[in-house]
């Protein structure tokens, strides 16, 4: 009887500690770090998406002397009976910057919401190490969010690889200059040729900048996708894998993301098109294959004029 009384606290302690073995703080830490890495990569991707959205309608940079000469020319072109206002002077100083319209606000909301989503997801696991065992259900619930956020990054990669950025104002500014040189009767043939060669170089550099922004944005979105997939896998297997397994999975994700660095656009485009297929075939993702994945996939692959309409409908 005395022996039984002595054994009881020890047995209770053993039972409690054995509960916590399956979901140790180390495993929780591996998951938390992977989620933070996912946020880091996604934030970089969102920064590039924002840069793309901004650059498409931004004016071509002008030198100080060019801007000053244009200001003088603008003011002198005003009719003598035109009232001068602050707005007109502002426009004479900078005629090309697009005035903030409804889309600037929409763009800011779009990227702010995205940043909030990925931050909220990573923050979910802030205290996981201290509750590694009892939070198993909560971890399981976070799986669908990891999947949705990963699919978003894959969708951005797909969208941008299909519809590359266009620096619209830069293009039209150069087209205007090329046309001006072409039609300028006061220039000699040699001067025209010299100026056109310079403009050709600038045109090619501009196109290269467009391609590089497309490439780097697709690359970064795919890196976030790769990390996000592994986070989804870590969540799915949180209760079953060993710490070593988790560390191997995390390292594998980082390696896979690293392999994307510097890939050319063609390679990234192939990878982007392939990513939905791989996700669909992955058993971990099967629970979203018929819902969110299908929705995104349909939107991205929607073809033909008869299938138009609001995707929200």
């Amino acid at each position, binding site marked *: 009887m005395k022996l039984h009384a002595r054994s009881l606290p020890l047995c209770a*302690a053993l039972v409690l500690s054995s509960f916590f073995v399956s979901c140790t703080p180390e495993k929780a830490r591996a998951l938390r770090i992977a989620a933070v890495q996912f946020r880091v990569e996604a934030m970089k991707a969102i920064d590039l998406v924002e840069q793309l959205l901004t650059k498409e309608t931004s004016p071509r940079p002008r030198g100080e002397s060019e801007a000053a000469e244009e200001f003088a020319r603008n003011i002198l072109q005003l009719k003598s009976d035109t009232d001068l206002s602050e707005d007109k002077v502002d426009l004479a100083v900078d005629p090309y910057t697009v005035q903030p319209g409804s889309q600037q606000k929409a763009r800011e909301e779009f990227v702010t919401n995205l940043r909030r989503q990925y931050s909220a997801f990573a923050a979910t696991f802030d205290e996981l190490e201290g509750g590694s065992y009892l939070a198993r259900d909560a971890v399981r619930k976070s799986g669908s969010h990891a999947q949705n956020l990963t699919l978003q990054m894959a969708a951005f990669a797909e969208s941008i690889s299909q519809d590359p950025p266009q620096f619209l104002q830069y293009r039209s500014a150069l087209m205007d200059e090329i046309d001006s040189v072409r039609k300028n009767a006061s220039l000699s043939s040699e001067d025209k040729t010299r100026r056109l060669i310079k403009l050709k170089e600038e045109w090619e550099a501009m196109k290269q900048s467009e391609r590089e922004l497309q490439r780097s944005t697709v690359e970064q979105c795919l890196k976030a996708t790769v990390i996000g997939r592994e986070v989804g896998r870590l969540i799915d297997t949180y209760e079953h894998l060993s710490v070593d397994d988790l560390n191997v999975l995390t390292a594998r994700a980082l390696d896979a993301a690293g392999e994307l660095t510097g890939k050319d656009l063609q390679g990234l485009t192939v990878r982007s098109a392939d990513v939905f297929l791989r996700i669909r075939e992955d058993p971990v993702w099967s629970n979203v294959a018929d819902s969110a994945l299908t929705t995104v996939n349909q939107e991205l692959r929607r073809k033909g004029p008869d299938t138009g309409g609001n995707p929200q409908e």
Partner: protein
Amino acid sequence: MDNDAEVLNHVASAATAIDLKYRRADFESKLALKDDRDKTFDAYSKARMKLLEEGVICTEKDVREMADIRAEIGRARKTQSILVATGRFLAFLAKVAA
């Protein structure tokens, strides 16, 4: 090419055309053209945003759910720390009783 991508390219052409007209105009004409030109660029941005928004599936409700899960994990941490402390206390008792 899907509809939305067609819209994007169509608006891009329109924006380029009006911007070329704007750049070639004198300043008085620029004053008159500025609003229409800016609206066309705004329409392009809208078309680009629409393409990107098609991939967005995470909602406000999801963000609230993530906050709820975070709170649940916080509660689990507190409970687990109590249980661990209890376990240590019981182990201590067992050691003392032995």
